[in-house]
């Protein structure tokens, strides 16, 4: 069964394209007021574009596909061919969609801007009059509302506008009116920001955009020249991206994901575990020696409760035997997953026991540094360990990320922290060590978060491992809906009847299925790359997985993926990209073995 984040962006490509289309209509406003018949002409062109796009998409995908991208193409074409007769515009839009888009495989696969293709072809055949965007009052809303689109391709967009300005200055024609009149805002914000056809690479975008903008102005600045210039830039971007494979040097993402249930809300605690009958009669022990501590950790089967469920004793032995001069102990109290709250609850109420657990581990290994890692702003009661505040972003709690922040050490994806002398344990695991050693209690209960995402409430519950999930749900006041389990809200799966609480389950959630519509139209926005904490080229890897080319995907090192789910959360095409990354990672792992 697939895993996926339960939360995802509400925005889609279609929302942004609709917004762009509305802005385009604002550009048409002055001409509509001047000649109202143009309103009908505009919508006729849009209607034809929707019909052509709809038919071709239906033939290709055997189902209806949203045609807002075609409407956008029609809108741009109408603006640039304002003084042209209707039938030429209709020819233009047909050419745009068929030659500029569908011949390449449809929306998201076209290397060249469809509208610019149409403008160039009808301009060369029929000739086009230059369009002037005089800065009249009616155009001010259009100009202002165009600006936010720069965010899609900022380097290319700003480069293009700067190139135009520079060319006008060199020609001694620069002025506010002439700058806007040549369409600096229109092209820069709405054409050069097309993520499908323009590279996100900063250098290529800025330099290419500047040359495209400047070059077009030097060569008359007419719509046909502008279109040719933009298309040339598109081709260069395509070649660079596809064949030269200019690396997308992205810094790893450090973005916070807002908690689903705010920390300030009242947290109810339910103890749903059975009575602690297995707690030994000789509970309290004083000053246990190292062997006794290790023996109790082993016999009480303490395992990692952060999600990995790795036997803690093995981890401790690995660190003990590690051939490293200095050894480190990091207690992970970060709880970066936006849906979890039980670690925070535990820290707030059982810090003394956690401190005892930390000291027990320290009695076994002589650590150079012991640090309790918590998020910035978390207040911790006094404890005889260093408290390290790490930045609040997801997934700062991932083992290697945490080590990098706390110790400043970068481990590769093949390095095992314990073998490097670094012991990382979750706070709940440390609490479990305390219970195993001091109370001689078997590690068969755990704290989990139970979230009702519909009612925006959450509970912390103590549950016994092996408990049927249904039994847990029945005891809590939850809404009706789908039940999901997971290591966190970012890595969940749908629960089936026979599911039980195991060591991988940190969350039970009631929610609607997140809307992964798996659109066939990836706009190449690059949000997946921007939000990847490992700085991976998620876009390329997932495209190769979609084409069944997992072998080819190996060169982008999919094994570095930590399955945080951020890419799925932000994908505007509603694709579960983390699933594709998992497939690529599995294929890579298979190749290594």
């Amino acid at each position, binding site marked *: 069964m697939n895993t996926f984040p339960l939360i995802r962006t509400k925005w889609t490509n279609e929302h942004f394209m609709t917004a762009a289309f509305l802005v385009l209509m604002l550009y048409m406003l002055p001409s509509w007021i001047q000649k109202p018949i143009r309103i009908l002409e505009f919508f006729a062109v849009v209607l034809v574009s929707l019909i052509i796009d709809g038919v071709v998409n239906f033939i290709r995908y055997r189902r209806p596909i949203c045609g807002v991208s075609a409407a956008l193409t029609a809108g741009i074409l109408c603006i640039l061919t304002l003084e042209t007769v209707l039938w030429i515009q209709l020819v233009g839009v047909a050419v745009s969609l068929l030659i500029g888009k569908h011949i390449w495989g449809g929306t998201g696969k076209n290397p060249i801007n469809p509208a610019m293709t149409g403008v160039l072809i009808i301009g060369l055949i029929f000739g086009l009059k230059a369009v002037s965007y005089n800065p009249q009052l009616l155009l001010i809303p259009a100009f202002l509302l165009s600006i936010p689109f720069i965010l899609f391709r900022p380097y290319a967009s700003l480069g293009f506008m700067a190139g135009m300005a520079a060319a006008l200055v060199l020609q001694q024609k620069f002025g506010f009116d002439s700058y806007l009149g040549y369409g600096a805002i229109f092209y820069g914000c709405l054409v050069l920001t097309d993520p499908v056809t323009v590279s996100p690479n900063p250098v290529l975008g800025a330099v290419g955009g500047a040359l495209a903008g400047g070059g077009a102005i030097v060569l008359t600045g007419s719509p046909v020249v502008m279109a040719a210039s933009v298309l040339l830039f598109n081709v260069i971007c395509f070649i660079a991206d596809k064949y030269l494979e200019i690396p997308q040097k992205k810094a790893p993402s450090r973005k916070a994901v807002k908690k689903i249930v705010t920390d300030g809300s009242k947290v109810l605690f339910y103890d749903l575990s059975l009575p602690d009958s297995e707690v030994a009669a000789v509970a309290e022990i004083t000053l246990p020696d190292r062997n006794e501590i290790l023996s109790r950790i082993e016999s009480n089967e303490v395992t990692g409760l952060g999600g990995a469920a790795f036997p803690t004793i093995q981890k401790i032995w690995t660190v003990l035997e590690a051939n490293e001069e200095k050894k480190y102990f990091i207690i992970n109290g970060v709880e970066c997953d936006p849906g979890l709250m039980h670690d925070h609850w535990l820290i707030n109420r059982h810090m003394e026991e956690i401190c005892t657990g930390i000291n027990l581990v320290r009695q076994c290994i002589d650590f150079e540094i012991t640090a309790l890692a918590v998020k910035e702003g978390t207040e911790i009661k006094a404890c005889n360990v260093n408290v390290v505040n790490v930045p609040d972003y997801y997934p700062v709690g991932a083992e290697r990320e945490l080590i990098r922040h706390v110790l400043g050490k970068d481990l590769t994806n093949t390095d095992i922290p314990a073998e490097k002398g670094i012991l990382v344990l979750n706070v709940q695991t440390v609490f479990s060590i305390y219970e195993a050693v001091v109370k001689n209690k078997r590690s068969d209960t755990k704290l989990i978060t139970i979230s009702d995402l519909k009612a925006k409430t959450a509970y912390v519950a103590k549950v016994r491992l092996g408990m049927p999930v249904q039994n847990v749900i029945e005891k809590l006041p939850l809404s*009706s*809906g789908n039940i999901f389990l997971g290591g966190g809200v970012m890595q969940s799966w749908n629960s089936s009847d026979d599911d039980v609480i195991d060591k991988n389950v940190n969350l039970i959630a009631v929610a609607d299925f997140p809307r992964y519509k798996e659109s066939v139209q990836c706009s190449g926005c690059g949000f997946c790359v921007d939000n990847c904490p490992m700085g991976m080229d998620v876009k390329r890897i997932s495209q190769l997985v979609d084409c069944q080319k997992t072998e080819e995907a190996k060169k982008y090192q999919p094994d570095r993926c930590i399955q945080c789910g951020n890419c799925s959360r932000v994908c505007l095409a509603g694709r579960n990209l983390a699933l594709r990354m998992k497939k690529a990672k599995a294929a890579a792992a298979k190749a290594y073995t």
Partner: protein
Amino acid sequence: MAVLNKEFFDGNEVLFVGYSGGKNQSFCKMIHDAFARNGIKVYPMNNKAEGNYDLKVYKNISELPKVPKTAYVLLNKENARKELKELFENGIKRILFHSKSNIDDSILAECAKMGVETSVACPMMKFGSGIHRIHGFFTGVR
């Protein structure tokens, strides 16, 4: 023909026959969600359950932990007809067919002969929202 309401789903559970793993998966998931939102437990089934599913899909009735009394059938006429025998044999007492294009008189007659109550409607008309409810209103599903 029975009225489609929540009581139609005996025990608040339903067997979803023909849960698609292909291009209709998002539609099936939407129906699944609508049932779940209304407290009806869904057992999705597809005898070609090899798709890429986000939830547990059973291959046949024998795999089910429990067989509900009500089935919702989202299959074409031919496949629906083939499936009827297995549904009858496993104690299904009520069947909701997705639309009139998925059935014919012989299917309804066969159900009636076996004492199985039937209804024909998209579940979204009853349990969905917005435009689905409007659709339901005009087709008499209220």
